[in-house]
């Protein structure tokens, strides 16, 4: 359950008082007075007691704060003298950077960021408001595509865990094209986003090769108590760098691809390169020949086709035919 922002602010006040070396062992009255001074809110002793109990809880609910009442000092203290709430002191630049990051994360967070991230984000956000409320703005100045949550995204956490902890997964997969359900055991190593669609990549026992599965077509995945089949690092890197998109065209290796592009659409390729290997050779009339060195994918051919007569595949020969057949 999320902790409200007022509570975080009181935690910070309690923390600052307890850490104050000039005036050790703050009393309950002094804490209540400090809350009034800094927050303008009348706080009861019961609330402060609850706050301290919450601070003692383990993360992520609390902060594992070793706060106790020192009978000798007649006030509150930390049993660990090195303890500090949050444990990190931030410079103004750090805070500013965090604020920008939070705004960015909030902007994209609607559907792309896992739910569990929200709790941690609230903590950071509350702290930054507490310390820098004057500069905080409510008006969003970043906007990205933020479509409604897609089917299958709820499996994100499970696949993330499976990739991180190298755990095989049993899943039910539905092929839209074949209209067929199948049960697969995969050994996932990467989650990939492309055009706001999410995919998991892994070694599929049934296919005996690395395959990519759209999360929208995956049902009820389970983590399995089974030996994980690892994928070597170079394969992972290849998956990350050699594709535009997700689904490679079967049996095709990394190769040169050339397209002829109209002057109009050349502007877009110049502004938004689609792959790190992209090279543009301009012609006098503004049109261009653009070359890539990558593993051709379904998404690459769809991109070419989406530009209509502005883009024409010129190499390799098989891709010319392949693209024509997709029309």
């Amino acid at each position, binding site marked *: 359950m999320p902790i409200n922002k007022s509570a975080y602010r009181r935690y910070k006040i309690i923390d600052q008082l307890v850490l104050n070396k000039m005036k050790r062992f703050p009393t309950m009255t002094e804490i209540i007075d400090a809350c009034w001074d800094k927050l303008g809110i009348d706080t009861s002793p019961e609330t402060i007691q609850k706050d301290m109990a919450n601070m003692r809880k383990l993360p992520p609910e609390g902060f594992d704060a070793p706060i106790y009442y020192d009978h000798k000092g007649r006030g509150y203290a930390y049993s660990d003298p090195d303890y500090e709430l949050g444990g990190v002191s931030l410079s103004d630049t750090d805070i500013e950077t965090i604020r920008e990051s939070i705004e960015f994360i909030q902007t994209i967070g609607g559907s792309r960021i896992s739910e569990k991230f929200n709790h941690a984000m609230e903590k950071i956000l509350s702290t930054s408001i507490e310390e820098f409320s004057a500069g905080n703005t409510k008006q969003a100045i970043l906007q990205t595509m933020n479509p409604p949550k897609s089917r299958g995204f709820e499996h994100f956490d499970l696949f993330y865990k499976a990739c991180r902890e190298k755990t095989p997964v*049993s899943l*039910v997969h539905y092929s839209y094209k074949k209209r067929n*359900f199948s049960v697969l055991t995969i050994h996932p190593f990467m989650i990939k986003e492309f055009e706001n669609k999410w995919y998991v990549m892994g070694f599929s026992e049934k296919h005996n090769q690395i395959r990519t599965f759209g999360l929208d077509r995956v049902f*009820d995945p*389970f983590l*399995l*108590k089974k030996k994980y089949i690892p994928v070597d690092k170079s394969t992972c890197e290849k998956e990350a760098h050699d594709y535009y998109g997700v689904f490679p065209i079967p049996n095709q290796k990394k190769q040169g691809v050339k397209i002829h592009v109209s002057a109009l659409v050349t502007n877009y390729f110049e502004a938004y390169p689609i792959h790190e290997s992209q090279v543009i050779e301009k012609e006098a009339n503004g049109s261009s020949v653009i070359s890539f060195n990558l593993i051709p994918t379904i998404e690459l051919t769809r991109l070419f086709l989406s530009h209509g007569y502005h883009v024409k595949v010129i190499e390799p020969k098989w891709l010319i035919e392949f693209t024509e057949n997709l029309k």
Partner: protein
Amino acid sequence: MKSKTSEPILFEIAENKDLADNPKVLRVILDPKFTRIDFGYNATGQYIKGGWIRMSPKTYVEVQGLAEKFLLTETTGITIAPKKVVFQSVKDWQFFTLYFQPIPQKDCVINIIEEENPTPDDFNYYGIELKMNEGVGILQNL
């Protein structure tokens, strides 16, 4: 691979020409607290808009060699009759799960019986073999 256990054990059900394939039985999970069976269904052209599906509340699992019936307790993705999941097209499809009372976690052959005197429209399956050494333990709580 497991032999004796009290954790959930997952069995992939291989394609089998003797088993009805629509709905297709996909997985069986034997948990100490329940038996779970996953199915996939494709709507067909038999009806203009794909028709509908539902499960009889009397559906049960039987273990060959045992007299006991393991009754249907819960469903997801499909309704219990008289309610229906109604399709909108002949291309619709549905993943669904049936939960039954737990069957013993040991080698067995099970039947899934929706109707004891079935018509072709009823979901009856016979002879699903579960070998404990082919099952895999599940790491998470279900």
